């Protein structure tokens, strides 16, 4: 389970003068569900295309199961890609689409037939085997594309924004479905997405890419709770930022108030920094943490699960977002214009160099 199956070493890719990928090192483990997360232009799709064999790296190497596949053609890699556009063959039926990859392996007809039937069972589309792609809904096409790649039982399955074209509800269902299928088949998945929530929900590990470089790599929890840069903190979930200056063992905010955090040497004494705290770490029960902050409620949004407040505070020009659980919100009825004080623990404060 914890064995490395895929290694990327110093992968670089230039398109003319443009550097799409700027030297990435990455190890993907056996059976892992791995997410490449980044905004458009971060190089995530280029990286995926290099893994599939559609782009050759300008420098660096890709090793799969100890074999160098950096320059291996797409049709000679035990790697399959599920395309963002699904790229189904419009002139073939669902069953023919799925059988195509097996026919390329020159498997016996009977085996192809039974494997296609099996996978149609898994994606619950057996009744649509003779349909053409343009007679399917978006969700059905997506499942056919998945089946077509999965049926080859690749060592590595690459998924390029697999849920991008689906509506929100279907996306939620498919997130769980993909995880189930990945577990069931025991195939390593690498998914490319710009949707941080999707990455958090599905992936065992996430790599955040920015401008072609690897910013941070770790478990969803690790990335969410311990972002190593302001960019990562901002990109994943919601984060409140406010400017501070380090003063010995604590930080000084704009209004002269003290902010406590577990400080390490990342920020030098007397230098500017940015403190950050997640909305759900802020509590109305001030006694719970070392830090407190007073502000006026400027907006409220009820989300069912929680109540989101916007606070105007002297700490920062941006409003501070507070996320109260349904219980906490019920215990203390609030309305816009109320002045409230929220508190949080020193260990929940993140500090980044300014």
């Amino acid at each position: 389970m914890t064995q490395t199956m895929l290694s990327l070493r110093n992968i670089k890719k230039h398109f003319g003068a443009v550097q799409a990928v700027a030297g990435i090192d990455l190890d993907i483990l056996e059976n892992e569900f791995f997410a490449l997360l980044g905004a458009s232009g971060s190089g995530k799709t280029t990286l995926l295309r290099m893994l599939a064999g559609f782009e050759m790296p300008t420098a660096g190497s890709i090793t799969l199961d100890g074999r160098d596949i950096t320059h291996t053609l797409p049709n000679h890699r035990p790697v399959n890609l599920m395309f963002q556009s699904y790229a189904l063959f419009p002139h073939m039926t669902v069953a023919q689409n799925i059988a195509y990859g097996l026919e390329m392996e020159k498997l016996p007809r009977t085996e192809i037939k039974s494997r296609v039937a099996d996978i149609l069972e898994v994606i619950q589309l057996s009744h649509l085997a003779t349909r053409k792609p343009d007679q399917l809904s978006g969700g059905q096409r997506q499942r056919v594309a998945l089946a077509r790649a999965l049926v080859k039982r690749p060592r590595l399955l690459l998924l390029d924004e697999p849920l991008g074209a689906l509506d929100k509800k279907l996306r939620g269902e498919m997130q769980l479905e993909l995880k189930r299928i990945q577990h069931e088949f025991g195939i390593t998945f690498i998914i490319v997405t710009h949707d941080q929530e999707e990455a958090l929900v599905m992936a065992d590990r996430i790599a955040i890419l920015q401008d072609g470089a690897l910013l941070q790599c770790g478990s969803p929890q690790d990335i969410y709770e311990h972002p190593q840069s302001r960019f990562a903190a901002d990109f994943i979930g919601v984060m409140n930022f406010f400017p501070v200056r380090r003063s010995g063992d604590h930080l000084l905010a704009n209004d002269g108030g003290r902010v406590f955090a577990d400080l390490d040497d990342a920020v030098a004494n007397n230098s500017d920094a940015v403190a950050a705290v997640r909305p759900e770490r802020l509590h109305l029960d001030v006694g719970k943490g070392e830090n407190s902050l007073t502000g006026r409620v400027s907006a409220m949004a009820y989300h069912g699960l929680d109540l989101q407040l916007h606070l105007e505070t002297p700490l920062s020009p941006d409003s501070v977002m507070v996320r109260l659980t349904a219980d906490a919100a019920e215990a203390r009825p609030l309305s816009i214009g109320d002045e409230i004080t929220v508190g949080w623990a020193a260990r929940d404060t993140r500090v980044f160099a300014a």
Partner: protein
Amino acid sequence: MTDRKSLYLMTPALAWLTGLMVIPCLLILVLAFFRRGIYGGIEYTFTLENIWLVFDPLYAGIFVKSATIAGTSALIAVIVGYAAAYAIAAAPSRRQPMLLFFAVLPFWSNYLVRTYAWIVLLNREGLIASVVHSLGYDGELPRLLYTESAVVVGLVYNYLPFVILACYAPLSRLNPEVIEASRDLGGSGWTTFRRVTLPMTAPGIATGFVFVFVLSIGNFVTPALLGGGQFQMIGNLVYAQFLTANDWPFGAALSMFLIAIMMGLLTLQTFATERASGARKEES
């Protein structure tokens, strides 16, 4: 758009087609069932003779020959034209309009001039002969002009732009990810072409083929100029019935038969194109 509005918009085209296409065709059809007058002209008595005469081995032979020449021309034009269209579609997209423009350029010059150009190239003292001789060969060259091959060459040359345009359309619309998907699933370049690219662009090939075939089988200028009267194609035969033999009824019968062949082919092609594009959507 309302039915009334679209009727207004269609009226000029419909009037044009009815007056200059449908009615003349009907006249020709009717003509085919009359007898030829003794000194030319038409004798208005019903007969099926003209129709039977079309199937006379002499004329049926000319039909077969015409179909062979048209078929050969269409086949060559499709192979050459598809390759050219493929290359254009694969070129950087900003260069494609220019390449297409050049491919179609000869088409904007006069048909006769283009056909005469081949006479200049192919005749006994023509460009090809002088190039071969200047390279040191002084034997007798096989005859190039006034052969079936010359006719085929002329037809291919004239209709190639149609084929390039017809094949370019589906090739340029091809989603590159579909090609990549085939490679990704283990298909070699050739397999991908055979099983994905070719079937997906078949409608363009069919359109190009039928186009060249239909325009070639009824053509009478190219066979007259490049065939040099050595043999006849249906077009020449029809031409002769109306203008020299003065047998309008038989000319009409030949024309109807030709039109029937073309209509059959065009119907077949439309049908095939619709099938290929999956335009039929079945309800479950």
